[in-house]
């Protein structure tokens, strides 16, 4: 009888399905497992939708999607994913592994408790991460199905799991993938990066119990290495001051400065500043009124891979008018935030 385990990532199943060292029957087994995994994820998503509908009716769903599994794998300084699975990451003797597990679990809790979202896909998908990727690897990334973190070169950067906002930044790329599906080019790319910075920052503030005044609004503060720090750099990016000299990646602050072909990590400065400006005007906790509107804008409409920044700005204005009456202060703050950057 054919059997499969969803704990094996799709990329591993597909690799085995193409491995010439296996028999044709074995390759077909792995290909079938990958196909079945895809269909089961669709089922899970549909189950999540049923739950949401029944919950909105005040009914109790027959099946409540479980909280997501959080898995960690150790690449052991190779660049092959997923790496070696870690049996008990919550109690790992390796600080990086344990931290990635704890903070990924916290991001899952953040999305669930603040936005009612069950994992990256809204339907309880496993949240998989790999650590110790490569040697002196100065990056963290989302590959479509897992987060991956390098250890840094101890000059420009240190361990990329050190910043809670970086962990939430990467996971939010997954949320975007399963919702608005913003592409990674042009204005949509800047919006994609902005979503990750905005929700990354909100998670950082929620985790630290900081309101908008207490927050530092920095992305990557805790991954800056001694060499970069010596040169006066304190972060990757700063939502409060995107063009500041202390940013490793200074960004434009006006839409008029957007250029075709601009890297998404550069153009995201425009919506980042709009978000910060609105947040400071509203006050309190960023994940409350403002975060709810941003979450609705990200997840409440059909996929829009080529969405423009103006369209997104108008969407948040529209949602603010719908979600926060009769108090117009939130809507006014959001309008002012976008106006400040020329949108």
């Amino acid at each position, binding site marked *: 009888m054919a059997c499969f385990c969803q704990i094996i990532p799709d990329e591993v199943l597909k690799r085995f399905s193409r491995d010439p060292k296996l028999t044709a029957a074995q390759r077909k087994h792995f290909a079938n497992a990958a196909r079945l995994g895809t269909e089961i994820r669709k089922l899970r998503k549909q189950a999540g939708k049923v739950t949401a509908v029944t919950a909105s009716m005040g009914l109790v769903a027959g099946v409540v999607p479980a909280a997501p599994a959080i898995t960690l794998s150790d690449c052991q300084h190779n*660049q092959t994913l997923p790496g070696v699975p870690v049996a008990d990451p919550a109690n790992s003797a390796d600080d990086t592994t344990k931290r990635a597990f704890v903070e990924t679990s916290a991001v899952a809790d953040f999305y669930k408790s603040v936005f009612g979202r069950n994992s990256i896909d809204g339907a309880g998908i496993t949240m998989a991460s790999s650590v110790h990727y490569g040697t*002196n690897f*100065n*990056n*963290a*990334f*989302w*590959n*479509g199905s897992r987060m991956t973190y390098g250890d840094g*070169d101890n*000059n*420009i*950067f240190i361990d*990329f799991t050190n910043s809670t906002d*970086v962990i939430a*930044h*990467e996971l939010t*790329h997954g949320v975007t*993938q399963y919702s608005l599906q913003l592409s*990674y080019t042009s204005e949509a790319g800047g919006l*994609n*990066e902005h979503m*990750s910075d905005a929700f990354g920052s909100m998670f950082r503030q929620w985790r630290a119990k900081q309101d908008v005044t207490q927050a530092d609004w920095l992305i*990557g503060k805790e991954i800056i290495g001694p*060499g*970069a720090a010596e*040169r006066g*750099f304190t972060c*990757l990016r700063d939502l409060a001051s995107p063009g500041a000299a202390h940013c*490793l*990646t*200074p960004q434009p602050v006006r839409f008029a400065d957007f250029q075709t072909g601009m*890297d998404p*990590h*550069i153009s995201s400065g425009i919506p980042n500043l709009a978000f910060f400006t609105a947040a400071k005007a509203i006050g309190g906790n960023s994940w409350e009124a403002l975060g709810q509107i941003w979450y609705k804008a990200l997840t409440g409409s059909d996929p829009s891979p080529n969405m423009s920044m103006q369209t997104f700005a108008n969407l948040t204005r529209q949602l603010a008018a719908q979600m926060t009456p009769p108090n117009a202060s939130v809507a006014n703050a959001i309008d002012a935030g976008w106006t400040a950057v020329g949108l």
Partner: protein
Amino acid sequence: MPKLSIERLGGIAGFGVSPNIKSEGEVESSDLSPEDQAKVEKLFEGGSVPPVKNTNDVFNYRITRQKDGRSQTIQVPESLVPAALVSSVKDTLR
């Protein structure tokens, strides 16, 4: 065999697009294994490849060589670049 100039671009920090950090390297084609030389030739024949869909904050590589009196440049995802080229690149503060 031409020299290859390699730039690593992107990532969460914006290597190569930030004015403050860059990632560059050089490799003599003749120093590569025959397998890697063939892989590089095939990359240039195929031309630039866009990033894989749904990947974010990944690195891309811009590889340039001089051939037949002309400069050729391609940009491809890291997953397509031979390890010998990847390891030649050094990250530095400008």
